[in-house]
């Protein structure tokens, strides 16, 4: 039985342009494909990853166009379709002016006070 692991991401948009994704979300997908039993918690600035329809397209440096922008909201939806539960800390979204209706479908919203209980349900908690 694989160890049940929660991936916690709180930093947002550190290198998403160059990597065309968030590396912690990406590696979660890769490890899920390798048989991992994984869930994801977005907190802090990373809650913005769940905002639906964000668009980073159109970037060009000196004529070198970014043809594949990051689509982190779509990446999260894809993760959920593969059976990875994605949690979002409610207060972190509210503090950043993100309304529930702006978020992608399928998320599990938890209060900040519920984080400890969430952690207790996992064998491992990895904070990226």
């Amino acid at each position, binding site marked *: 039985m694989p*160890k049940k692991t929660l991936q916690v991401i709180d*930093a947002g948009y550190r290198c998403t342009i160059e990597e065309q994704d968030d590396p912690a979300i990406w590696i979660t997908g890769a490890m899920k494909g390798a048989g991992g039993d994984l869930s994801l918690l977005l907190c802090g600035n990373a809650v913005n990853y769940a905002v639906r329809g964000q668009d980073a397209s159109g970037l060009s440096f000196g004529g070198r166009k970014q043809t594949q922008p990051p689509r982190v909201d779509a990446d999260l939806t894809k993760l959920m379709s593969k059976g990875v539960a994605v949690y979002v800390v409610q207060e972190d979204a509210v503090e950043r002016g993100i309304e529930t209706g702006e978020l992608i479908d399928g998320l599990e919203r938890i209060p900040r006070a519920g984080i400890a209980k969430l952690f207790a349900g996992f064998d491992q908690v990895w904070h990226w």
Partner: protein
Amino acid sequence: MADKKTLTFSIMDAPYENGRTVTAMRLIDIAARRGYDITVFAYEGAAALSFAKQEPHANAVHGRDLAEEDHPVPREWVAALIKTAEAHGGKLDWINCGLCVDERGVAEAVPGTRRGSPADLWKAAESSDCTLIIGAK
């Protein structure tokens, strides 16, 4: 060794950029001296820590020539930690994330390290007593 542990670390910071790298090295060094079996998955910028072409330099501001400055280069830390683990009856499996290596052009790594993938991190974590991720911020 009755209390031998198996540990997995994943680190992300590029060389010379953050104190988190030194913290990770401290922890790995302690584990190596205890003879533990250690896996390090060097992800993102950390894939450059073992790059074989790192070179030390003199430092005119410090007033020291090349020899005097004795500038640390992370590839030496990696190589030394691999030897330390072996010398104490354990092992250090240093794995560089392959795609991270490619996009940074750091394929030449010191001997004793290897190229891998996220599946290696997962596999190592599954068989470890504990896993520590030190992410970049």
